[in-house]
């Protein structure tokens, strides 16, 4: 037997096996892209650098919102050595079982990558742990910035921040899971300005996730850009004072500088300290606020639509004067036949009617406007007149959403013929159906912001600047819309202002409690009818000849306009203009009273 032939068999086997290896190499190195990609994942890490979020200042450059460093406790399970579990649990204030579950979750995620063990340590926990951390191998801190609301005020203006939700992630690729985003208020509306631009640092790591080098000498790194700082129009002192006054009352205050449209204060009560929605306790506190029957999360100033009540008589007057349905000396009897009224001297002219807030007077005024008689059908007549009226009223800012810099704004409602057609059907309604509009009741709705703005229009005798909250973005004044000029004649405002002067400063005036000795306040009360107790409403501006502040106060279920809203307005006006209160007894009384029924 010639055995040397067998060398060919052996050659064949060797070459075959080498070929198999070679083909496998070919497959791995030429074909398989998945594994090559895994190589990058292995060694390249993209580290997101979070920029500092923009700060928020008030109009006097006091900080309202800033950032502070919070500490998370991280763990790399592989590096845990000789762990004194009991001691660590004691420091962290958790039980052993929680610890065990937590550490198992971390291990499940990765043994060699760091995972967050405890989020947002309390300062006390951080202080104790910092000294003892050397005892716990594998545990370390990671800093992160969280929002800090420095003054415990203006929660509804500033809003709050929370983790991004699925929709945010889908709609904006900027975010990744776990990022924080503005959820409400300025934080939400100016999210893009405040957040800045995330940076990316690419590094090469070794098998233990330690940084070895920066990737390509940092050529592909992107520097983080800090968020822009915002300067608000809010006057912190006034805001704080207003919030204090509104304690234990439900309602809101909006104060505007009529000369610029700047919102000086905006209070919605009940309110809360914005800081409680930051950090660890956020979830719990948020739920508490959400489930509170008084709805503290709601910004009533812009998102509650109220019947304006008697303050709307001013708007009626303005339209009627403009269309010459009445003049300043027009007289209507206070006959109380159709609408009720209180006892007061006769209304010899518009100003007096405003002073006494005479319901029949405005009923007749509105009747004149709606039942013009230019059509034989009373229905068509009413519908046409109402639409003309609607257009005029809307020029006063009612029924409009102002772009003041806050989300979740409501528009209020000024009804037109369509609106009533839908309810009653075409030609099935007329003046007698809608007459309660005359005194600001019925279907008409307005937000307190619109009421304050309307007051500013009167103060300016015919024009307004769209109210706004943010006046500077990173030091640059932002352009605000041109002033809005209403179609009303300046002289038509005189009897109204005169009436508002009487309301506060003359006998039988319905808003006598708004009187201040050294400041001439012009105002108008309202008592909006409500199924429960009536709402107390007041709008005012002061001083009469050089208005510096226009204000609306709305107190829910508090009764007469003069009993709550008027004195509150008085205090705020005096506080803003004089910075002192001449009647501390009234101040104390208002602050310490509650309108909330238990």
């Amino acid at each position, binding site marked *: 037997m010639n055995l*040397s032939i067998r060398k060919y068999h*052996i*050659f064949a086997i*060797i070459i075959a096996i*080498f070929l198999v*290896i070679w083909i496998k190499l070919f497959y791995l190195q*030429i074909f398989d892209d998945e594994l090559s990609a*895994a*190589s990058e994942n292995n060694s390249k890490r993209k580290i997101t650098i979070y920029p500092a979020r923009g700060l928020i200042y008030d109009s006097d450059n006091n900080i309202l919102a800033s950032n502070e460093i919070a500490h998370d406790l991280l763990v790399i399970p592989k590096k845990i050595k000789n762990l004194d579990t009991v001691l660590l649990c004691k420091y962290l204030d958790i039980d052993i079982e929680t610890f065990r579950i937590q550490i198992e979750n971390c291990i499940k995620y990765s043994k060699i990558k760091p995972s967050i063990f405890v989020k947002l340590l309390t300062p006390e926990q951080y202080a104790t742990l910092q000294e003892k951390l050397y005892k716990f191998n594998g545990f370390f801190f990671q800093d992160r910035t969280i929002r800090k609301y420095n003054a415990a005020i203006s929660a509804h203006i500033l809003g709050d921040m929370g983790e991004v939700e699925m929709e945010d992630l889908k709609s904006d690729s900027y975010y990744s899971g776990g990022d924080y985003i503005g959820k409400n208020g300025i934080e939400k509306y100016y999210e893009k300005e405040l957040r800045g631009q995330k940076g990316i640092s690419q590094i090469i790591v*070794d098998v233990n996730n330690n940084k070895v080098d920066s990737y390509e000498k940092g050529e592909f790194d992107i520097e983080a850009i800090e968020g822009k700082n915002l300067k608000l129009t809010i006057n912190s002192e006034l805001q704080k004072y207003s919030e204090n006054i509104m304690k234990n009352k439900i309602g809101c205050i909006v104060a505007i500088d009529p000369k610029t449209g700047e919102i000086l204060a905006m209070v919605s009560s009940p309110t809360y300290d914005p800081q409680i929605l930051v950090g660890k306790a956020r979830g719990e506190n948020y739920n508490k606020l959400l489930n509170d029957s008084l709805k503290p999360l709601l910004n009533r100033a812009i998102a509650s639509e109220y019947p304006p009540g008697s303050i709307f008589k001013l708007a009626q007057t303005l339209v009627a004067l403009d269309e010459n349905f009445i003049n300043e000396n027009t007289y209507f009897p206070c006959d109380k036949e159709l609408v009720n009224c209180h006892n007061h001297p006769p209304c010899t002219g518009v100003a007096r009617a405003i002073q006494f807030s005479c319901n029949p007077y405005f009923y007749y005024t509105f009747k004149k406007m709606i039942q013009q008689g230019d059509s034989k059908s009373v229905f068509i007549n009413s519908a046409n007149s109402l639409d003309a009226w609607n257009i005029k009223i809307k020029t006063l800012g009612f029924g409009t959403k102002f772009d003041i810099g806050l989300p979740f704004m409501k528009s209020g409602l000024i009804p037109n013929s369509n609106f009533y057609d839908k309810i009653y059907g075409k030609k099935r309604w007329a003046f007698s159906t809608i007459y309660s509009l005359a005194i600001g009741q019925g279907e008409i709705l307005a937000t307190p912001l619109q009421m304050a703005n309307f007051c500013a229009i009167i103060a300016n005798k015919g024009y307004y600047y769209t109210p706004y909250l943010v006046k500077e973005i990173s030091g640059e004044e932002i352009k605000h819309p041109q002033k809005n000029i209403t179609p009303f004649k300046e002289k038509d405002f005189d009897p109204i202002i005169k009436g508002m002067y009487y309301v506060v400063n003359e006998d039988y005036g319905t808003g006598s409690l708004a009187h201040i000795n050294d400041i001439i306040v012009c105002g108008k009360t309202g008592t909006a009818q409500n199924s429960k107790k009536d709402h107390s409403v007041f709008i005012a501006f002061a001083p009469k000849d050089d208005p510096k502040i226009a204000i609306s106060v709305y107190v829910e279920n508090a009764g007469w306009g003069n009993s709550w809203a008027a004195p509150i307005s008085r205090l705020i006006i005096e506080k803003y203009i004089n910075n002192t209160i001449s009647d501390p007894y009234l101040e104390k009384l208002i602050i310490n009273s509650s309108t909330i029924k238990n």
Partner: protein
Amino acid sequence: MNNKRNNILINLDWLLIIVYLALIIIGWINVFSVSYTDTSEIFDFSQRYIKQLFWIGLAFAIAISILLINNQFLNLISYPLYVLGILVLLSVLIFGTVVHSSKSWFQIGNFAVQPVEFVKIIMCLVVAKFMSNKQFHFTNPLKVLILLSLVALPILLVLLQNDTGSALVFLSFIFVFYREGLNKFVFFTILVLSILFILALIFPINYVLFLVFLFIIIWFIILNWKSIHGKIAYSFLSLFLIIASIILWRNNFEELFLRQYLQIIILSIISLISLILIILHLIKKNYRNLYFMGLIVGISIYILSINYVFNNVLQEHQRNRINELLGKTTDVYGKGYHVRQSKIAISSGEFTGKGFLNGTQTRYNFVPEQSTDFIFCTIGEEWGFIGTTLTLILFGLLICRIIYLSEKQRSAFARIYGYGLASILFFHVFVNIGMTVGLTPVIGIPLPFMSYGGSSLWAFTILLFIFIKLDSDKIQIYWE
């Protein structure tokens, strides 16, 4: 004297020496790449690449001194060396140091020597010596028994050291035995069964069965092409492949295996073919058909029983241990992780590689044992497909050249020694590279001439240069 030295230089096989040097250089470059860091000083003697340079220098000295030894001397000291080797292995068991859970090292000061590497040389010599005896023949049971005992004794001792990898290396002598007259059937049976054993454990059972049947059917067709059986089987195979292609077209490849379509197809095709074979046998009394049927049934039972034993008889920890060896577990610390990291590293090299010192996977310790058992990863990552192909070609050239030269030897001793060397080299290269690409179990044996470490480098240098020396003397022997 002068004349004789010239003679040696002329008669040396310079091709082997050049390939040897090339492998050493490639190996060192990659050890350098793995162990060099920007912060380390170039001539820092604690660095592996400097140490390796030192080992290489010593290896060259050893190589030269081997060329000066008389061949007869090698022949004479084989048996005494064997006894010495066994004694050393025994003493390692008693006095050795445990490294990576195997007690196979001698620690002398800062040096650690792994005696089993040198036992490979002794085994080559002893096997060559014993089998080159004219009285040895595979038909003589006593001689075969002695031969097997000679090989089995060191295997047993190495197994006791818990160094399975090195023990398995000696199984490669089966190639030597085959070349020297081992029964063809025994050889191929052992070869096929061991390949199937590994395949059945590494790959899904469907996959293996499919490939094996395909192979057997094609073999059957080739052998029976001239008769009607072959053509019938061919038709069935074609039908089967058409159905398989349709399924492949409808689904993706993985789904084919996951959804067990394949099992159904295999079973139906096999039973159809078996039925036809049985009918043909009954009609024509052709025993070859029965043989193939037996083959198919036997191999199916073999593969399925491996699978069954693995899944049902073995304890879970035993299964885990085997899965670890096979690189199938995904545990971060297990060997499965090593294989995955190794494959990632090689794969990321793509065609041209990332370039010298640019391999992130191997340089930043993602691949374990990068400079020793997994040095091939660095080649794959930094030099790409070009580098790995070149390395394979060099090893292939080395092994084939050794077999080619062995066949030219006039003395049986030199030829058998050459085959022993080629077998051991082949086993090392196959298993080492195989494990880095996930084809073979991770049994931790070094890549010859390339892996970091003195013991293995010196042992392989001695092994190779003994052969080069034997080869250089073939002309002298002829003259005598």
